[in-house]
């Protein structure tokens, strides 16, 4: 299956979507394809950085269950998010990051809610759909959050076999829970490997095939986000986006250049600087570039 087919088949207008991780290991090929196919009224789970920004700027998002959204961590705040909130183009429901992770966990466990011990006493709680309950065993006050079962989870991994048995090198954040909680799962992988290499080390499989509906091989598929062990964040593109997205005209120019102006993800990779750029990002990730701060190594 291609990215185009996977998005066309599984992501509908109005779908509740979850895309993996933040700032790193993001299924960007799918994000761009959703924009290209002009999907509408999406519900987005948890938030994100550049990925979320692109979807909001393209008018794809109706509602956001936010843990973190509207910023780029160290790189600053999002002009797009601010515009969208001020103009009431999106509705935001507040959560803490882990409250949202626990919602996915409940979804993955097949239970309707889960008790947690955060969010209580705050406006974050009041602007969420969390509730307070008394523990039937101990009597202590607990916060409960409803299970989240997205329509589609999109997760980028280091490698998987053609059936979707997936391996992630590094932190999994909430992606394992999301894959189990979602009705449909699209996996994009840096590399598709044969079934036998999965079977040799089955303990490395973190998403087993029976949860997975589509598998697409997309090398460099997290660009411009970080892919642990493969390539680092492309700060140039992030900064270009942050600068351009200050105006609607800038957003349009950026999207025309990198999304609508290219045929597919391969075309996009050419547009952002091609192999020369990608190799540089790999050097940074692997601490091979003398210019990076390798002396800091403990």
């Amino acid at each position, binding site marked *: 299956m291609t990215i185009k087919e996977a998005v066309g088949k599984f992501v509908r207008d109005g779908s509740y979507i979850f895309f993996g*991780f*933040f*700032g*790193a290991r993001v299924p960007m090929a799918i994000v761009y394809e959703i924009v290209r196919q002009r999907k509408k009224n999406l519900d987005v789970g948890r*938030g994100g*950085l550049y990925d979320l920004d692109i979807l909001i700027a393209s008018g794809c998002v109706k509602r956001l269950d*936010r*843990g*973190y*959204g*509207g*910023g780029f*961590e*160290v*790189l600053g*705040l*999002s002009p797009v998010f*601010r515009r969208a909130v*001020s103009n009431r183009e999106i509705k*935001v429901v*507040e*959560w*803490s*990051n*882990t*409250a949202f*992770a*626990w919602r996915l966990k409940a979804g993955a466990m097949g239970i309707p809610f889960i008790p947690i*011990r*955060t*969010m*209580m*006493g*705050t406006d*974050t709680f009041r*602007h969420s759909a969390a509730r307070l309950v008394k523990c039937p065993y101990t009597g*202590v*006050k*607990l916060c409960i959050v409803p299970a989240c079962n997205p329509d589609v989870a999109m997760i980028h991994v280091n490698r998987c076999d053609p059936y979707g048995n997936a391996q992630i090198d*590094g*932190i*999994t*954040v*909430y*992606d*394992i*829970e999301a894959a189990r909680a979602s009705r449909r799962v699209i996996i994009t992988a840096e590399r598709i490997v044969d079934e036998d290499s999965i079977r040799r080390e089955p303990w490395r499989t973190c998403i087993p095939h029976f949860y997975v509906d589509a598998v697409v091989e997309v090398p460099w598929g997290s660009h411009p986000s*970080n892919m*642990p*062990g493969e390539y*680092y964040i492309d*700060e140039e593109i992030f900064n270009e986006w942050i600068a351009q997205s200050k105006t609607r005209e800038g957003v349009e120019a950026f999207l025309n250049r990198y999304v609508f102006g290219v045929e597919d993800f391969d075309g996009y990779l050419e547009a952002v600087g091609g192999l020369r750029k990608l190799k540089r990002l790999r050097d940074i990730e692997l*601490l091979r570039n003398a210019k*990076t*701060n*390798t*002396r*800091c*190594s*403990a």
Partner: protein
Amino acid sequence: MNYEKYRPVEMMVVAASRILEDKKSVFVGTGLPMIAAILAQKTHAQRLLLMFEAGGVGARVPTLPLGVGDSRTFYRATMAGSMCDVVEASQTGFVDFGFLGGAQIDKYGNLNATCIGEYDSPKVTLPGSGGGNDIGSLCWRTIITTMHEKRRFVEKLDFVTTPGYLTGPGAREEAGLPKGTGPYRVVTDLAVLGYDEMTKRMMLISVHPEVTVQQVVDNTGFQLVIPRTVRVTDPPTSEELRIMREEIDPKGIYISR
């Protein structure tokens, strides 16, 4: 490089790093907390366990991460886990320190990272809780770093994103938050502050060199508890400055100069 002179933000990071203790664990947020935690690890707290909310445990951070989930947060770590993994460790009481930033803080150490102005028609939209609420809810001792300005140290937050002592003594427990957890220190470019045991209100502990108590009061939008003796923070050592400038943030990403 000149190690005699230093910037207020450098004093702030150094003062924050000194609060962290050896053989303890700390949840680290994006930005200055990262530098402070790494600095502590490279000076007095070599066995300080760094934990990042996205799943990294025990990293030996090679270059400054741009966020709490990038590959630097689990470089040569002892575990690359999940968010549930690490935050559940703090929910069961295994994490000593939480380390956060914030746009606004009030006298009980509550934090706003959601919006400036009305929630429905904000002047500024901020990225929301992220992991802040979880860290502030669950860690035994939460440290906040923020610039000391009147618009940040406010009587009433525009939005309570992350719980401090909420409305005062007993309020955290009353709300359902784990007993014995909560705000511990606030480190700014002017001073180090803590909390009065009885009232849970923010209290001045030390002013940085060449800063007066009056200056701190003037830049705080609520009434501070001022004890009879206020110490002067020890200035950064040349070794602390060297490590920070040359090893941790040579590009000046966080500490722009």
